[in-house]
């Protein structure tokens, strides 16, 4: 399976930043990810599609920033009004991808410099 994190982007962060800063960004992303996915679930359930797309946009930005390219692509699909995939199906896809991203991030956070 291809990695969930683009090595160039996440590697660039690890290279450019002090380990403490890198770890802080990983923690910030983890918080963002759980908050935004939870919001999207609530908004999709309540039928608030506008806010659902808004949260998807924020998730796409956060995921893109750390190199979670597939997750960012899923989030962009969710924010696109022309998408035909139902929100429930997309959220399941996002959830699975998010789990993979978190696993890889934990690996990067445990040893950001030696790669």
């Amino acid at each position, binding site marked *: 399976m291809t990695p969930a994190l683009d090595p160039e982007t996440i590697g660039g*962060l690890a290279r450019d*930043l*002090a380990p403490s800063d890198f770890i802080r960004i990983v923690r910030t*992303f983890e918080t*963002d990810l759980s908050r935004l996915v939870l919001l999207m679930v609530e908004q999709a359930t309540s039928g608030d599609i506008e806010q659902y797309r808004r949260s998807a946009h*924020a998730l796409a930005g956060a995921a893109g*920033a750390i190199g979670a390219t597939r997750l960012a692509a899923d989030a962009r699909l969710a924010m696109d009004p022309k998408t035909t995939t139902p929100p429930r199906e997309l959220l399941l896809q996002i959830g699975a991808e998010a789990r993979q991203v978190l696993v890889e991030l934990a690996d990067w956070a445990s040893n950001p410099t030696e790669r």
Partner: protein
Amino acid sequence: MARPARVLLVEDTPTQAEIARAYLADQSHELRVAETAAEGLRIAQDWAPDAILIDVELPDFDGFALMRRLKEAEVAAIMIVITAQGSVNTAVTAMREGALDFIVKPYAKARLTVTLANALEQRRLSVELAEARAIISRDRYFGFIGGSPAMQAVYRTIQDVAASRANVFITGESGTGKELAAEAIHRASPRAKKPFVPLNCGAIPATLIESEVFGHKRGAFTGATEDRPGAARSADGGTLFLDEIGEMPPDMQVKLLRFVQTGTVLPVGSSKGERVDVRVVSATNRDPLAEVEAGRFREDLYYRLYVVPIHLPPLRERGEDVLLIARHFLNVYGREEHSHFRGFAPDAEAVLLGSPWPGNVRQLQNVVRNLVVRHDATLATAAMLPAELLRAARPVAVPSAQPRAEPSGRAGSEAMVMAPPSPPPSPALATAAGDPLATIAAALSALVSARAAPAPVPQVVLQPEPLPEASPRAAPEMRGPILPLWQVEKEHILAALDECGQDVPRAAALLEINPSTIYRKLQGWRV
């Protein structure tokens, strides 16, 4: 920019904001983060950042709309757009809205820091340019008021020499602001926090000047009951201003030369010199080179002091600075005296502009003070100005003057307001000038002479130029029998009113009588 650059990031996604913050942590900038466009706008207005990094997608309104609002609010910061959309359209829109550059997400640290460094450099250059333009167009500089080209040159010289240690020699007529210039040099220099010590060499007796400049030791002479530092030592680290240096006695010039050459102060009664760090600024209202040639001022001292010359122009060469300064004094004294003056009427401005101001700013200051003390109105008119000023003023153009004063009835923003002409010193001169008003004045003068010495009738003024037909009420004809005084007076007053466009206060000022006298007489004549 001496202070750290201020950078505002408008970004609603915490992960993105944290990455930017971490990338910029070692850049010694001050960074603030706004999570919404509205918050970004508020911070930009309150905090005045140098650069703003703007995410396009924001929760309340988009980054392009924020840029428009920032421009409307006249926020001068450089704007950089951060976007996930790397399309040409986004780039074009960003540039059209005023962005200097744009960054596509995700971005590396170098991309952000280099883009920001370029932006801040551009900002620094534009700030410097604005400051330079402000210097060129300024109408105030330290204590000076005036934006005339002559004064701009003075400001530029002061600015240029302020940072150096070079001695400065200021020349200019009395009242042109030589001490103000010396103080401006001091305040614009790195010595600004150290003392500025002015000393008027012309006001100190020759026997005391050495002690005043270099100080003395206790017991050095009768009355020296304690050590005194003197001006040179008091100015250590700062600036010593020697005004009226041309008045310095020759023996003192030798001692001053030694001080300027060595930087060592030798107090009276002491054999031990003390080094000081003093910049010397000298001034005189005389021509220093002429003083050297006349043997009154040492040539070697002249060349030591005359390193950077600054010549202060007389007020008569400073154009509309006269009005700026007069308005300033009118405001200052108006507040002090609780008067209602709001400005000068065009006729007063014409007089102010046309006056030769031999006493320069000091004379103008006195004139305005006198006016405020003696009168109260919304506008200060020519009639409120001293008669000698009205007589000395030459005709000048005043911008935006009243159309009635235009010479040819031509509409325009700049009209010629005639300041009262100088009265002729002799009837012969008056007639030679061919000026109807001067002819009238000459005729009246002759009449007064005739009354003082009734016989013979003075012949000297009996050759006035023929009066133009356009002036029906002209000077009394003196060829025939002597006219009754009331008739001469009436014709003279009416002629003066004609000349002044029926402006009673102005005519009264020229006739040196009270306006109420004219009103009373007009009523009596039923004119």
